[in-house]
Structures are given as structure tokens and as C-alpha cells.
């Protein structure tokens, strides 16, 4: 551990996460957005999203990470993607079930997306469909990955590590390899939305998480993205996010904790200058892991998980073994939000 220095300072953000909708065709038990089958009438329509994209471009944003809910579940989503085409580097996170060969071709040729990230919660239909709550979703998602790869889209596979799938991660890696997916991401679980309600059932201890990661054997050429030690960055310094209703929330993983203002009422850069947003970006933490700071160039680890377990924005991140200090990640503090 080292005395925590501060994060790099960005006057304006480079990348923004768009949580495009809180609707989805699946019913995942781990859903962070607590999605519904139908989109709320209060969600931003495509025209408003396009207006926001224009403003983001003018403000210097060059990259978009778009997620949901399930973005492709809303019929007007492609209008927004087409509006972004050629102007932003776009990464699209999806459950994959709606990616047909025709849609994949459109995502590539008309929308110019850079990367498709597909959530696959286990190596087989039994594991995945139990997570999504929809029979047949695994087969559709795998078909979506095949379609995206065939269309020439850089396609990556993601999963959220839980007790439900940790023992199957090696098979999950083998599935990715068999599909021809070269980059996979294993993500930490966040106590948000529906997963928060089932946290005690789903979460592993930090030791169990590391054991699962360290047991993995990757095939040659496969790249694994994971954010545990020594890769536990504090992304806040370069992160901004907008939810489906136009709220500027800093990061999708802060969705239940902060709201820096609604873009229907305030300017995006005004929310970027919000005192709490500035504080979160600064890396002002009481304790930082030197190893992770060295690999990530930022300090203190994730602010969302730090806040979830400690209730303080400057708290140490309990998902980092250097700053965990005995916190049992299986036990979520009963703290009102």
C-alpha cells in the first residue's frame, strides 16, 4: 500500500456510458437495472438521445459504451446508433439474443460499432437460462455471437462472477474459445438492482473469487479482462454515464447512489463539474493499492463497491485484496440508500 496520490485530471470526459433503456427481453436474477419488459414512457426517446449525442460530441466525447437494460430491445435504438456512426467509437453491450445475421450486418455496415460485448452467464443453457430466467436465451445469445463474428464485428464475451457460475468458468472459457471469441471479461458482481436482493446467495468471498480466477487456464491467444488485484483501477477519473431517463450518474455502477442532474434541465459539462463528481474522479481515497495503481494509473479501486460496503466515498475498495481488511464480501451491510 502507498499513500494515495490523486488521479489524472480530465477537464472534459472522453468516454460516456449510455444506459440506453431499463427494459429487457430477459429477466436476469442479477440485473443491476431491475429491468422491466416494457420501456418506461419516461425514458428518453431516440430524438432526445440524438440531441444528447450532438452535445456530447461538441463537448469532446469521443467514445460511447452503450448498455441497458438491453439496448436492442427498444425499436428506436438503431436510429441512435446510426446517429453516432462515424462520430463516436462505440462499444455495445448486449445479451445477444436479438442479434440476428441481418442485425449484425447492420451493426457493422450502417452503425460502424467497434465492439460487441455479449453477456453469457454460464457455459451451457442450463446455467445461462437459470440466470436470465428465459428458456432458450442461451441458444439465442450464442447464435448472436456467431452472427456478430460472421459479420466481422470484434465480439467479446462477458460474465459476472457469482456463486452460480464460478465453478463453471473454465467451461465458459472453453465455450468462448470454441466460438472464436478472442477476448473475454470476467466482471465483479455489484450489489445493485436485483442482485442486491440476492446478494447473500450470489456473492463469493474475495478468496473464492481469486481462487476461481487463478484456476483458469486460458487457451493461447485469448485475452482475459478482469478487475481484481492487481488490475483494480479507479475508473472514475475518466468515467461519465447517463441513464435511460437522462440523469447524469457518473458511472453505471453508481446508478443507485448518485445523480448529478438531468440533461433535460442542465448541461452535461455542468454535471461533470458537480462537486461530488469531481471528488469521485480525483482519487481522493484514504487508502490505495500500489500494485493496482501501477497497472491502472489510477488510485483507490472502484468507488461503487467501496461505497456499497463502507458507506463512504473515500473508503478502501473491499474487492482489492490489498485493501479488503477482512471485509466479508458475502455479507452486504444493511444500509439504506
Amino acid at each position, binding site marked *: 500500500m502507498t499513500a494515495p496520490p490523486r488521479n489524472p485530471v480530465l477537464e472534459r470526459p*472522453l468516454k460516456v456510458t449510455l444506459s440506453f433503456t431499463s427494459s429487457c427481453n430477459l429477466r436476469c436474477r442479477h440485473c443491476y437495472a431491475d429491468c422491466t419488459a416494457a420501456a418506461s414512457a419516461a425514458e428518453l426517446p431516440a430524438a432526445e438521445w440524438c440531441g444528447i449525442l450532438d452535445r456530447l460530441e461538441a463537448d469532446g466525447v*469521443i467514445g460511447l459504451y452503450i448498455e441497458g437494460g438491453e439496448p436492442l430491445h427498444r425499436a428506436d435504438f438503431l436510429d441512435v446508433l446510426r446517429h453516432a*456512426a*462515424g*462520430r*463516436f*467509437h462505440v462499444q455495445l453491450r448486449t445479451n445477444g439474443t436479438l442479434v440476428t445475421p441481418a442485425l449484425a450486418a447492420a451493426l457493422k455496415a450502417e452503425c460502424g460499432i467497434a465492439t460487441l460485448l455479449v453477456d453469457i452467464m454460464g457455459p451451457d443453457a442450463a446455467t445461462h437460462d437459470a440466470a436470465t430466467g428465459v428458456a432458450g436465451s442461451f441458444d439465442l445469445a450464442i447464435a448472436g455471437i456467431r452472427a456478430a463474428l460472421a459479420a466481422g464485428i470484434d465480439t467479446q464475451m462477458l460474465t459476472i462472477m457469482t456463486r452460480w457460475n464460478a465453478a463453471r468458468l473454465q467451461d465458459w472459457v472453453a465455450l468462448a474459445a470454441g466460438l472464436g471469441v478472442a477476448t473475454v471479461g470476467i466482471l465483479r458482481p455489484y450489489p445493485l438492482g436485483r442482485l442486491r436482493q440476492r446478494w447473500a446467495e450470489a456473492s463469493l468471498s474475495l478468496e473464492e473469487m481469486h481462487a476461481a480466477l487463478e484456476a483458469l487456464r486460458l487457451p493461447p491467444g485469448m485475452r482475459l479482462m478482469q478487475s481484481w488485484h492487481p488490475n483494480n483501477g479507479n475508473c472514475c477519473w475518466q468515467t461519465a454515464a447517463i441513464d435511460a431517463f437522462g440523469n447524469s450518474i457518473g458511472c453505471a455502477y453508481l446508478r443507485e447512489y448518485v445523480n448529478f442532474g438531468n440533461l433535460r434541465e442542465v448541461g452535461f459539462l455542468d454535471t461533470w463539474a458537480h462537486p461530488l463528481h469531481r471528488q469521485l474522479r480525483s482519487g481522493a481515497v484514504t487508502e490505495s493499492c500500489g500494485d493496482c495503481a501501477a497497472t491502472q494509473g489510477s488510485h483507490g479501486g472502484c468507488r461503487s463497491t467501496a461505497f456499497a460496503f463502507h458507506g463512504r466515498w473515500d473508503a478502501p475498495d473491499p474487492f482489492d485484496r490489498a485493501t479488503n481488511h477482512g471485509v466479508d464480501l458475502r455479507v452486504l451491510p444493511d444500509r439504506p440508500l
Partner: protein
Amino acid sequence: MSCPTGHYSQMPGLRLRPVRELGVCVVFAPAEARLFRLNAQSWLALELCRGGTTAAALRKAWREVVTSDDAEERLRVALDLLLANRLLHHEPAPAEAPMTAAS
């Protein structure tokens, strides 16, 4: 070491996003669907090619900014990097244009 010759121009559609606080420029290349993070010298070379420039004009403009003894070498390295990543288009001077079977 070969000197730059011919004509250089940015590939169409590039979006340059200077990040002055970090001393870099992030470039979005839509044809590649990729982001590139350029250091100050590659950024300078790319900026100098905005709108297209001859190699002679590029070298002159470069030397006005980069005054070190190895300025020419630094320009060559920057151009090689930009060309390799298809951020820059190079049109050889007529005399150095590759011979074709028909010619």
C-alpha cells in the same frame, strides 16, 4: 534514413480529440472503428497534415516546432507510425511512384 517525400494527408473522417491535460491526442478512425492515443509528436505530425501537405512543407513546418538534432528522425518515426495505423495517406512523388507492369 530516407527523407519524407511526396504528399501527405489525413485519412478521411478522422476525429481528433486533443487531451491537453495529458499531453496526448485521442483519434477516432471510423474506417477502422478504432481509437488511437497519440503522443505529442505523432499528434503534431497528424495536425500538420490536416488538409494535405507536401513533404517539403511538412518538413519545414515540423522544423519550426521540433528543433532537436534528431528532428528529421523523429518526423520519420511519427510518419511511419501514422501510416502503419492508416491515419495518414501518403501519395508518392511521381518519380518515386511504384512501377506497374503496364508501365
